[in-house]
């Protein structure tokens, strides 16, 4: 028997504010059948994650890393017959994990804060010139003054305010 003594019956309200109504999930597994990451090891079973949220299994959900395997293909989002929006649930679970355990915060957010991008552009100058392009693309990489404004904007977000140690520059 599943022990629900420590379950948080309000967990679904906390996590899925912006998703579909996950109470309509009837465990049909359509979201698993079409999911590339269900072939992973460990597999991502989005159906099981929805169940954990509904049952309020906080501890188990907090240490479950499978939401981060998602390919973001949205096949589940399209196919779910009950309008649960499983992909949105997946992202919402990640955000909840991130709020409750800062080790979940993806390194990419700090990179974007620092440079505006997730890919370094320093070592690609030569290659860009070789194909007839300007060495630095006309993105924020070329406009340091805009990058400053962009960072100022992000400094006002909860994520940056609550985790200042991660965001330098």
């Amino acid at each position: 028997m599943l022990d629900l003594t420590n379950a948080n019956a309000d967990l679904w309200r906390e996590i899925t504010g912006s998703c579909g109504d996950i109470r309509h999930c009837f465990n049909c597994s359509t979201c698993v059948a079409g999911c590339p990451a269900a072939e992973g090891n460990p597999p991502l079973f989005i159906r099981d994650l929805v169940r954990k949220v509904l049952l309020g299994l906080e501890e188990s959900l907090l240490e479950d890393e499978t939401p981060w395997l998602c390919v973001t293909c949205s096949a589940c989002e399209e196919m779910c017959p009950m309008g649960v929006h499983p992909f949105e649930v997946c992202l919402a679970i990640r955000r909840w994990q991130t709020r409750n355990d800062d080790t979940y915060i993806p390194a990419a957010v700090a990179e974007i804060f620092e440079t505006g991008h997730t890919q370094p552009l320093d070592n690609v100058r030569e290659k860009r010139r070789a194909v007839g392009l300007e060495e630095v693309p006309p993105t924020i990489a070329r406009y340091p003054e805009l990058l400053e404004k962009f960072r100022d904007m992000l400094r006002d977000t909860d994520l940056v305010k609550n985790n200042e140690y991660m965001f330098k520059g």
Partner: protein
Amino acid sequence: MRYGLFLGCNVPAVRPDVERAIRLTMPRLGAELADLEGSVCCPAFGAFPSADETASLAVSAWNFSLAEEKGVELVTQCGSCYSSLRTARKRLLEDAEIREAVDRLLAKAGRVFRGTVVVRHMIDVLYNDIGPERIRGTLDFPLDGMKAVVQYPCHTLFPSEVVGFDTPAGRPHMLRDLVEALGAEVQTYSRELQCCGGAGGFVKGSYAGASEFAFKKLRAMGSETEAELIVVSCITCLEHLDRMQGELGKKGGEGGCPIPVFDYNQVLALCMGFDPAEVASISIMPRDGLIARIRRA
């Protein structure tokens, strides 16, 4: 026709030859490209959307404001950028509370989101604004007699309500028609509508599972078709299928014969006669033989 070219992070940094191909081919088709100066990461689903929704939407709105300011529709080749931006736009227009929070953040940076932005994918623009007919008329080296397969970018299919432009959503045809407009015969295979598996955290979190997933698709292409090239229209499909084919090649016999992968605008550029050293110079699987055949060299 004038569009704001949204480059994203990967194309300009990892495959600048694709950026070059886009910049050369689109104007020849009458589509003028404006730069979105100061654009940032879309943001990628694995970044801000996985950490803080308001921050995430502020980053998207930053990008929207650049296109709105220029009065151009935003066009991108990257599937993830496309889907992330489409999803964010919808959210911002539907949720007044979060919109207000985002407006406040943007105001700090001296930017405004009006809500007029239109986000398009490259396939949508090529098919619906330009059209296969017009494309056919610009080719010096059509792919006559060649056989190809296509890989549809998952982010342009689902959720169809948010990102869709092809019909019917579950049975897309536009990329196929665009490749046929180049003169090639496009063949079908059993895992055609599966995603490439290269996006998000799958590759990083479960490398063996992600590679096997891609191998199945590549084996289906190899054993069920006579394709000489794979045509995609998404930087992740391009990089991932190319890389996975290299891996499959290392495994020897069971791999079937490796098929070179191209972005659509790259093949288009080759057919238009542009210099391969500029428009198709970066790949893991060798493409020289095929490029020479396209150019009748």
